[in-house]
């Protein structure tokens, strides 16, 4: 199945694109999406998705179906074909 993945802030910079369609096995979870992306997107972007030990970044927010949740909390959310997933690395003021 295909899902639409949107990249924000540092992720967008590291990847050089704002969004793309990603092929995933049917009924893949948010965790599976993030692990697949981290394995294929290069180190600059991957560090915003997973830690050095391979855990999901605790501070990465993931928007699925208009709800933003830290990746560690919605890792087991099952994705459906056509879902739009927005990835928000942590940013701050100044």
């Amino acid at each position, binding site marked *: 199945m295909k899902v639409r993945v949107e990249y*924000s*802030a*540092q992720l*967008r*910079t590291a990847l050089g694109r*704002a969004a793309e369609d990603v092929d995933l096995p049917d009924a893949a979870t948010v965790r599976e999406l993030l692990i697949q992306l981290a394995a294929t997107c290069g180190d600059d972007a991957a*560090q*915003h998705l997973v830690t050095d030990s391979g855990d999901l*970044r*605790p*501070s990465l*927010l993931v*928007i699925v179906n*208009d*709800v*933003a*949740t*830290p990746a560690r*909390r919605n890792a087991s959310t099952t994705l459906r074909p056509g879902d739009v997933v*927005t990835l*928000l*690395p*942590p*940013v*701050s*003021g*100044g």
Partner: protein
Amino acid sequence: MSDLPYLTDDERDRYGWQLTVRGFGEEGQRRLKAATVLVSRIGGVGGTVALQLAAAGIGRLVLAHAGNLRLNDLNRQLLMSTDDVGQQRIESGVRRLRALNPHVEVETIAENIDESNAARLVARCDVAVSAGPLFSERLLMNRAAVRQRKPLVDCAMYELEGRLTTIVPGKSPCLACLYPESPPLWKREFPVFSAVSSTVGSLAAMEVIKLIAGFGEPLAGRLLTFDLGDQSFRTVRIDREATCPVCNDRA
């Protein structure tokens, strides 16, 4: 309402354009006049918050920001002037605020938020605004606001993007529900335009005005994200973390 301060004729004239805003009115203006707002840092975001709140007629601003103005602050720190480079930032900023609206009391604290002052500074305000670049400061503001049950507007940005939420203790998730610790990859210097920081600041100021005057719908339990690259604005739901060490333990 009877214990709210009355408006002078001069104030009625000054605020005339906003006194007719639906849901606001003279009572809303009197609520603003009675209120104290803490702004953590008066850079690109917080300086705009302070400027907007001064224009709107907040009674008292407590502004916390350490350090001297640098030349590369001036692409976004709109309270300051080129002549102020090298001077204490907080004193430069306050001159513009006082010149804009002498009715507003402005108290300056030449410190950034830390463990030693967060609770004390939050205790002095009705609403707090977190506008600094460090997650450690934002998380300290969050903890103090949750413990004292004070609303906190939390601001963030990057390049052409902005994010904003309002923490209303007891009603919304808190910042620690989203960020349990300071993210190790965050770098305090990052790409941004003033047009972005001042947009975030203006949105935050509107949250403060709504919270104090009691109208509109603050962003409690919602995260606003926007991208000025394509001018897209979106609000999404955010939920409390049941095991959050900050807002789960509140009395």
